């Protein structure tokens, strides 16, 4: 159990940067008046961020991931969250084993 001073400093720098981003949006909406235009932009944020996070995995990583993402999306229209996620994990594991990726 050691704590290197350079490592500690780096970890604190990472923490400070991350706190800034977490508080940033809250500070932003205090100073920007929320009209219909701003409301529309805010409403688009959740799907836009989520899609951006998953797009490379779902679309350009490999056929197993694309297939599993499709299966998860289909399952989500009928099943609760946990079951849909389990379906996706199952499909990706099987597809990787079959394709050999």
């Amino acid at each position, binding site marked *: 159990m050691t704590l290197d001073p350079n*490592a500690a400093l*780096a970890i604190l720098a990472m923490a400070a940067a*991350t706190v800034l*981003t*977490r508080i940033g949006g809250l500070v932003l909406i205090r100073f920007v008046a929320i009209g219909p235009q701003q409301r529309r932009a805010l409403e*688009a944020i959740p*799907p*836009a961020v989520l899609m*951006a996070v998953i797009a490379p995995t779902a679309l350009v990583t490999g056929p197993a991931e694309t297939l599993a993402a499709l299966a998860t999306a289909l399952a989500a229209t009928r099943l609760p969250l946990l079951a849909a996620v389990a379906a*996706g994990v199952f499909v990706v594991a099987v597809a990787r084993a079959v394709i050999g990726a």
Partner: protein
Amino acid sequence: MNTKDVFREFAGGVRAMAPLIVAVMPIGLVFGAVAASKGLSSLEVTLMSAVVFAGGSQFVAMDIWTHPASWGALGFSALLVNIRHVLMSASIGAKMPAFSGPAKYAAMLLLADEIWAMAESRATYARLSAAWYAGLAVPFYFVWVLTSLAGSIVGAFLGDPKAMGLDFAFPAVFVVLVMGFWKGRETGVVLAASAAAAVLTHQLLPGVWYIAAGAAAGVVAALVTDQRQEARA
């Protein structure tokens, strides 16, 4: 809200988060194992998970970790990887009228992708309470910190989570949540713009610029379609 209501709300948050709490365990273990293999002590691993608490940026940090560690490079990379939090906190911050001022800021300190996404999803059909949010965030936080510590200790004995498809659990959760934000064609435009920009940026630039690019493209697309509709009306 009386104590019983607070407890019920908290438990509701924990229940909603349960699948994600399970899914984060292997990821925390892998993070701890990777960090230990990079020469970080268990104390350093635990400290990072406890005060940074942002998995994506922690994995990126392991990619660029040096001895001695460079605080400038690591701080800047964390800023870039986590810049999406600005959008996320602006969005969820507007859905927290039931939170006191300090509670709002405290909630933001625990803002992680999974917690944010569940909170957004809750806010679409119910009033988001501080207790419900705490139910999402607090157990998830401790599981992340403790599994990171465990991974740094037992790292060498861990198998490959890819073989069991467990690395796909988070993308799968996000796929399900994206489906929940569907409100018709204008959502389709946002998703298409975000996906196209994210994939393109992912191919062209290293690092995690693709998240910022996709998010920005989606928001711009929403504003542009809005203006067109107004012009027609």
